[in-house]
């Protein structure tokens, strides 16, 4: 039973590794970035209408920043095409900047300052989605 499991595991890993180009690999490794951008956008929006407390935005930004740092590291390490890596790098840096901006606005309880940060996150998210789609694996 153990041998079968080991062979099956190796097979699955082998097969799935086989079909990915370095670009698709990088997109997969950084796929948390898009959802985080969207989540921070929603958290910011909800904060401006008092649906979520400021502490939630703070801790969400902290968690998102960790994901952005990790994604930046993966981008630096990757073998993928330079244009993709540069584009991703810009998106991640943008995400880091806008989320820091959002955090500051929320800390200062400044709704007006939060709005451009939220818009910035939305734009970055749309850009990220478009980029992912361009490199997506063809579906079976």
């Amino acid at each position: 039973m153990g041998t079968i499991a080991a062979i099956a595991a190796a097979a699955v890993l082998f097969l799935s590794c086989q079909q990915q180009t370095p670009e698709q690999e990088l997109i997969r490794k950084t796929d948390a970035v898009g959802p985080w951008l969207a989540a921070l956008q929603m958290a910011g929006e909800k904060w401006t209408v008092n649906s979520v407390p400021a502490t939630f935005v703070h801790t969400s930004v902290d968690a998102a920043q960790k994901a952005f740092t990790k994604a930046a590291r993966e981008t630096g390490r990757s073998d993928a095409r330079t244009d993709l890596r540069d584009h991703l790098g810009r998106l991640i840096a943008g995400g880091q900047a806008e989320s820091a901006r959002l955090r500051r606005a929320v800390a200062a309880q400044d709704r007006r300052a939060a709005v451009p940060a939220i818009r910035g996150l939305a734009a970055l998210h749309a850009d990220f989605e478009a980029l992912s789609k361009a490199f997506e694996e063809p579906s079976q």
Partner: protein
Amino acid sequence: MKKAMTLALGILTSVGGFFDVGNIATTAQAGASFRFQLIWSLLLATLLVIFLVEMSGRFAAVSGKALPDAIREHFGFTFWLVPFAVLTLIHLLTLGAEIGGMCFALHLVTGIPVWVWAPVVAILTWLFLWRSTFSTIENSTSLLGLLTLAFVVAALLHHPPTGEVVAGMLPSLPHHDPEKYWFIAVSILGAVIAPYLFYFYSSGAVEDDWDPSYIAVNRGVALIGMGFGSVISLGAIVVAAMVLAPRGIEVSDYHQAALMLTDAFPFWGFALFAAAMGIACLGAALEVALSMAYTTAQTFGWNWGEDLNPREDARFCLVYTGAILLSALLIMFGVDPLKLTLLTMAINAAALPFVVIPFLLLMNDGKLLREHKNGWLSNAVILFIVILSFVLAVVSIPLAIRGGS
């Protein structure tokens, strides 16, 4: 009247065993990434777990014994050792995940880091077990658990497209990210068909003094209890599909799931999510800790029972105390709650053969169960579960590596 109160056992097992941190994580992921497409996985898992719970209850009612007790007695210590070791690992990991869930819920409303809450949550859970009787735990958790209905209400308020929801009840192939799709499908099965759930149920039935007259009630409890948990989970998938998916918020962190109820309930949504998560995890933590104590005490023949005073079953109490301590340490040392949850779901799925096969053999024992032993339908279902569990065992760990991170 007592039989009506047995519904409480069913609802407790469903709030604690069915809708717990694993379910929250997997349903949120399913709805956010694949909208209604994975509903079939939830329904399949529900159907299978209803059968397992019914069998477990029937067994306890007829034989007067809980499963670990009966398996050791019937098959001997050497046979039971491997399932027992597997169950113990699952208990500890799951308890860690549930404690992590409670810590996260508290973190949501206070902003204080997750790991700081671990000792507080551990002591709270322990106190509950130390001071309460089994019926107090059953009744209070069931009552508080009704809060999770918020997911159902929110789902209805969103007016989901009925056609798509119904289409999702049938299995289909994913349009994107097949690894993630199958990983979540397997995780849902692992989250719902948690091995400790039907083992716990048998011990709970013995705590509640069930006898053969409870067999009919047991069928109702299995159906309504598990059905209740399933409806809540379905609500969670729908809400995630209507709120998170359109925004492209896939769930890799509990912060993202926490936004779920804020569209339907602009003022209360955030607090409701935290409360529902906290309560579901508390119920589950109590159940898992008890389940581990039941399993260990019964294996070695010690005195056991939540209704007894601690001085009458000291070793039983020592087990749940130790379990809570060890699991809390996982969270205190910074293990990510969501990652721990997903790992545990994968292991649940992989461990199913070890815990279901002894059960299958027992349910067919004519001497123990007499005329109540498994009929052809129950046997067909449990055989299907065994085959499915082997498949899951083989694919779940590789999928977790590929599709989960």
